[in-house]
């Protein structure tokens, strides 16, 4: 059986977990077994609807205290559930919480793990999974040598389709260990799309000349419904908050559309964004290295191009 861990926050299942379920269900098909999901805590989502993503059952440990994340407690409960249910493959989203617990679960189950996976396993010579390495500059095929396997799938790398099916909910009964982490404060920036979950990202670099010029970028992001990001020099000089920094030493993202404005495209920046499906580069320097990695390019002054781009998008949306 393939067991998929469902991550959630503020009573809502994360988008990356939807993808993980669909990915886990595809592995279950390869292996000829069932795909079942595991959720710790409570959400407002209809869990039976996870059948549409391929989960035949959803095992739920229905306890409000688990809505607050504690890596040690969550890893221990997932490992116990996976053992009790005799799961062969355990799938996580390679998101913030997945990174914190998937490797611990692998240790507890004596399972080999691949994190940052970006393909279905190849079963021709055992069990090989492709993952991104060198911050997205290359791939590695990793063979998992153990009978049990843990895979954490990169966000936005597999996609989702819907089946006509619904899942049954099974209540789990596992004693909950004592908390090891006390969450004392949560600071969520409301109305902002989390960068790692965003399909569309608009990003700015030093070419915008100063934080006071970010308005044109924010307008474009708003018109598209996109998240905002920036290059390292921009976050280092505090023009934009650190959590917006994408690149080798920042966040690595793979949205459907990445729009880079006034970013030259240094190798370290490209490492963080080159898995994006479509890249648009707006830069006044035709020699900017980013154009080599782009699908669409506009050589021009950002202060003229970006407002015109925004207007064109609003016009298109208005005509829809």
């Amino acid at each position, binding site marked *: 059986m393939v067991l998929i861990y469902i991550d959630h926050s503020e009573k809502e299942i994360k988008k990356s977990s939807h993808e993980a379920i669909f990915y886990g269900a595809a592995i279950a098909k390869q292996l000829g077994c069932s795909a079942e999901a595991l959720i710790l805590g409570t959400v407002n989502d209809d869990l039976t609807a996870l059948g549409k993503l391929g989960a035949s059952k959803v095992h739920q440990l229905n306890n409000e205290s688990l809505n607050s994340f504690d890596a040690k407690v969550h890893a221990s409960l997932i490992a116990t559930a996976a053992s009790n249910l005799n799961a062969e493959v355990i799938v996580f989203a390679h998101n913030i919480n997945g990174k*914190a*617990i998937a*490797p611990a679960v692998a*240790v507890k189950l004596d399972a080999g*793990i691949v994190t940052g996976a970006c393909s279905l396993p190849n079963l021709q010579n055992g069990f090989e999974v492709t993952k991104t*390495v060198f911050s997205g500059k290359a791939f590695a095929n990793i063979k998992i040598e153990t009978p049990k396997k843990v895979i954490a799938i990169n966000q936005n790398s597999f996609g989702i389709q819907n089946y006509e099916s619904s899942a049954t909910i099974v209540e789990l009964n596992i004693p909950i260990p004592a908390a090891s982490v006390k969450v004392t404060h949560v600071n969520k920036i409301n109305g902002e799309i989390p960068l790692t979950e965003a*399909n569309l990202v608009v990003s700015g670099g030093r070419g915008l000349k100063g934080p006071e010029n970010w308005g044109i970028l924010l307008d474009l992001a708003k018109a598209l419904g996109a998240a905002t990001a920036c290059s390292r020099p921009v976050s280092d000089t505090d023009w934009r908050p650190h959590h917006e920094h994408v690149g080798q030493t920042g966040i690595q993202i793979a949205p459907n559309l990445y729009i880079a404005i006034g970013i030259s495209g240094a190798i370290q920046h490209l490492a963080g964004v080159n898995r994006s499906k479509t890249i648009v580069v707006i830069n006044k320097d035709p020699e900017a290295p980013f154009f080599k990695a782009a699908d669409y*390019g506009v050589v021009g002054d950002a202060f003229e191009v970006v407002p*015109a781009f925004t207007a*064109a998008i609003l016009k298109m949306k208005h005509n829809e």
Partner: protein
Amino acid sequence: MNILVCISKTPDTTAKIAFTEGNTKFDENGVQWIINPYDEWYSLVRAIEIKEKDPTTNIHLITVGGPEAEPIIRKALALGGDEAIRVNSNSNDSYVIAQQIAAIAKQGSYDLIMTGKETIDYNSACIGSMLSAILDLPYVSLANHLEVNGNTATIQREIEGGEETNEVILPMIISCQKGMAEQRIPNMRGIMAARTKPLKVVEPIATNAHTSIKEFSLPPAKTGVKLIAPDQMDELVKLLKEEAKVI
């Protein structure tokens, strides 16, 4: 307080990524090695800042690697580590590496074990989480702020679209990222002192790898950029909608 800082050797961020031996090994030809930036800039420097506030703090460094890792560990000593341990193993399996670090951690009484959020070569982000399972300790990942008060750590960690503050009773494991501290450059006094600081080499414990790397590959090159004139933004929107189908 005793802190164990995990140090990994990685290729420089500008290193050319190429492979050899039938795409089974990273081509180290001409590669400059550095301390993994997350280990150095955030985890090690924050440990040093803690020691600067409380000079009774001991900072021990650990690396799992061959003799070629020694310049890296000497640099970490020059920045401000007190002593270092190198486990003489060249594994690239996270589980094996975590087992080696855990074996050393069990011999010391560390209040805090610090790692970077991930290495910039394999990007596995596994070591901290694995250590928490092997050592049965609390773990907070992707931390961008850490204060220690007595036996309590107050940590800010990244969550989707924000931050969360956690309180944890030591001992614990923490993985560090941007925001935690600022990059430093070792000074001459540090470099001189590092030459005589203890660097102990120990042989690895026996443990089986759970994974092996079969083949590396490079992403396919982009087919070429389609240029759109700055006054043709309707055309760009049309291409994104109808050709790329992303909006």
